[in-house]
């Protein structure tokens, strides 16, 4: 009986190993899944409202192209996403299509992504002149189109219509009366604060993204420039930097805007009616809508100078570099990218300005309120400085956030803040680029 038992166990093990081997071999045989469908791997970083809309876009493409088997992978936004994508590209086993902030092309544009073939795009009805000029300029490197913009998402100004009405800040048509200049903006904040009894402007004073977006808009409105040549030192308009920081400090006086509100708390405070304005990207429209706040949105005003330059970025689509490109998958990637672009009206409901002109000029989009109210911002967008450590979710943004938080909280004077940030930039440049 003992022998029998041992034998049967061995037989079982052998059978199991054999079965496992066969399964593994079978797995190797058909990587493309059932029915000869083309497998297409797509990576993105959208969660929340954007995530739902992105799933909608992917599903739309699935319906349009039943012979393409799309695997959509959503990864955590920011440094983790860009690290994984960069590693996948460097290793040659990247997805077929990926989302990228246009501001990250300094790293990815050189070696990690392939250029878009204009002929292939034109065959699908998309040409470069259908994108806003400043965005197109950002995604074009050495005359080659490296990323396909899906949208533009500038810093925008949310306003609570009831609060602003009580504060006498609305024009006759019920929209926000134009605000021009630093004093007018601060005054609007004060008047809104008098109505809410709390803050005038909900602003993430402790949030790297919020502070950077406002700082960069102000800095560019002042004509400030930052050049980051490899090896350093950084070429910075220090006066413009000090002035922009001084404005931030004045704004965060505890009444016009809080000195301490963090990233998630700022939209929450606006949504609950504790502030008349909110300074953040347009994606927070969902928060305000869900809360039932009476609100609208408008372009970030010209606080310095006449042109309302505004910090923006663009969710764009890239073809990550692969060691071996499957032509069928590459073709499907073009199909999917164009499908997402042409169906981006629903994407625009989430607050982003659609990049493709046929969508951006469509009556359906123009009828979207308040989303289309700030569409002109796409013509005056200012992207982050050009360096491997710059862009959305980058070290520059988080490090500048440290400085700017020192400014908003009053721990640093604008002069100290400028020295701090410029000193860090110099140091970072001496390290040499890994790209």
């Amino acid at each position, binding site marked *: 009986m003992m022998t029998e038992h041992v034998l049967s166990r061995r037989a079982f093990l052998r059978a199991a190993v054999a079965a496992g081997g066969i399964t593994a071999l079978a797995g190797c045989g058909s990587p493309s899944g059932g029915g000869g469908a083309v497998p297409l791997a797509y990576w993105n970083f959208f969660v929340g409202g954007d995530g739902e809309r992105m799933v909608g876009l992917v599903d739309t493409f699935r319906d349009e192209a039943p012979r393409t088997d799309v695997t959509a992978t959503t990864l955590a936004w920011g*440094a983790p996403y860009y690290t994984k994508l960069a590693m996948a590209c460097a290793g040659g086993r990247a997805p077929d299509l990926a989302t990228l902030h246009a501001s990250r092309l300094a*790293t990815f544009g050189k070696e990690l992504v392939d250029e878009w073939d204009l002929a292939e795009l034109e065959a699908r009805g998309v040409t470069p002149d259908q994108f806003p000029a400043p965005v197109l300029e950002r995604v074009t490197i050495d005359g080659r189109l490296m990323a396909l913009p899906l949208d533009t998402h500038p810093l925008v100004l949310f306003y609570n219509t009831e609060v602003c009405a009580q504060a006498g800040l609305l024009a006759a048509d019920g929209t926000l009366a134009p605000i021009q200049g630093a004093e007018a903006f601060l005054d609007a904040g004060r008047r809104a604060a008098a109505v809410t009894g709390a803050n005038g402007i909900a602003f993430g004073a402790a949030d790297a993204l919020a502070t950077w977006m406002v700082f960069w808009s102000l800095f560019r409105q002042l004509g400030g420039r930052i050049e980051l040549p490899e090896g350093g030192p950084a070429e910075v308009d220090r006066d413009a930097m000090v002035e922009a920081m001084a404005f931030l400090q004045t704004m965060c006086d505890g009444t016009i805007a809080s000195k*301490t509100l963090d990233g998630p708390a700022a939209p929450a405070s606006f949504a609950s009616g504790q502030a008349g304005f909110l300074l953040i990207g347009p994606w927070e429209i969902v928060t305000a809508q869900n809360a039932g706040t009476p609100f609208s949105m408008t372009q970030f005003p010209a606080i310095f100078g006449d042109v309302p330059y505004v910090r923006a970025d663009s969710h764009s689509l890239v073809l990550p570099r692969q060691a071996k490109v499957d032509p069928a998958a590459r073709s499907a990637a073009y199909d999917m990218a164009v499908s997402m672009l042409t169906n981006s009206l629903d994407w625009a409901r989430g607050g982003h300005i659609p990049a493709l002109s046929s969508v951006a000029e469509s009556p359906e989009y123009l009828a979207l309120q308040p989303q289309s109210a700030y569409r002109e911002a796409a013509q005056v967008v200012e992207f982050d400085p050009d360096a*491997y450590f710059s862009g959305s979710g980058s070290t520059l943004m988080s490090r500048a956030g440290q400085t700017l938080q020192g400014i908003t909280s009053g721990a640093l004077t604008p002069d100290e803040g400028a020295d701090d940030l410029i000193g860090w930039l110099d140091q970072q440049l001496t390290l040499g680029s890994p790209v």
Partner: protein
Amino acid sequence: MSAVGSAQNTARAGGPALVGRAGADGGARRSLSVGRGGPWFVLPFVLVYAAFLLWPLVYGLGMSFTDTSLVSPEAEFVGLDNYAQLASDPLVWRTLGITLLFTVLSTVPLVLVALVMALLVHTGTRGQWFWRFAYFAPFLLPVSTVVLIWQWLFQGDFGLLNAVLGWVGLGPVGWTTNPDMALWSVVLVTVWWTVGFNFLLYLSALQAIPATVYEAASLDGADGWRRLFSITLPLLKVTTGLVVVLQVLASLKLFDQAYILYGGSGGPAGNASPILQYVYDTGFVNYRLGYASAISYAFFLLIIVVAVLQARLTSRKES
């Protein structure tokens, strides 16, 4: 862990018994340790250990002498350049200082609070199981959950902590926004989160002190305080040594709670950015793997020095 404490106790108390038993059925033992089969049983673990610990250790050390980048396939041997660079990199020193400061700031309360908690529970309050559970429960939570809870507690404008301060007539504190508070907030989170572990070590050590010692002391007329200072604390010395060593090593590893609490930004003015975060940022956010390896090996060296010093100190104390 408690396993460490009890292992020590059994080794000391039950040592001879074990040897005796091994002698009794030595036949069965020999076949396992000397027989051909032994290494095969160890092999799976050795393979995993070699592939995921030893090899990366060696590989990382090699990488620290190159300018390996995460995003470009070419890497050149640069000798000691990375090490020379880190010596003059202010951020290395700054983040190292923050890590060391955190180690001091967190180890003291994590040892003292745990000891006090264990003593209180051990005095024989009713429902000991409840206190044991309540004190240890936070330790079971994942770090992201812990930080999420505290982010709301710390929230400057409508967080619970500032609300409580308001009730007692104190002004709000910028828990996560004030540069001077930034690291203290991380300490607070860490103490709440991990004090239960040290508490458990102390509690098991307390329970291992024989009741007869206290009985004898009582007969000699020693009161509660006298028993605490003359019996309990001296007998807890070994455990305290263990707790301090484990705590210093755990605190030097500071990364996750600080990283999540400040969303990877390093906190206001970067005052809560530990050296491991600088390693992570350098290697994975800024793609400079070679330099990041050099920093982590320099830090590794420092930890070894600390560990050796500590071992020296404790062994001298014991002898």
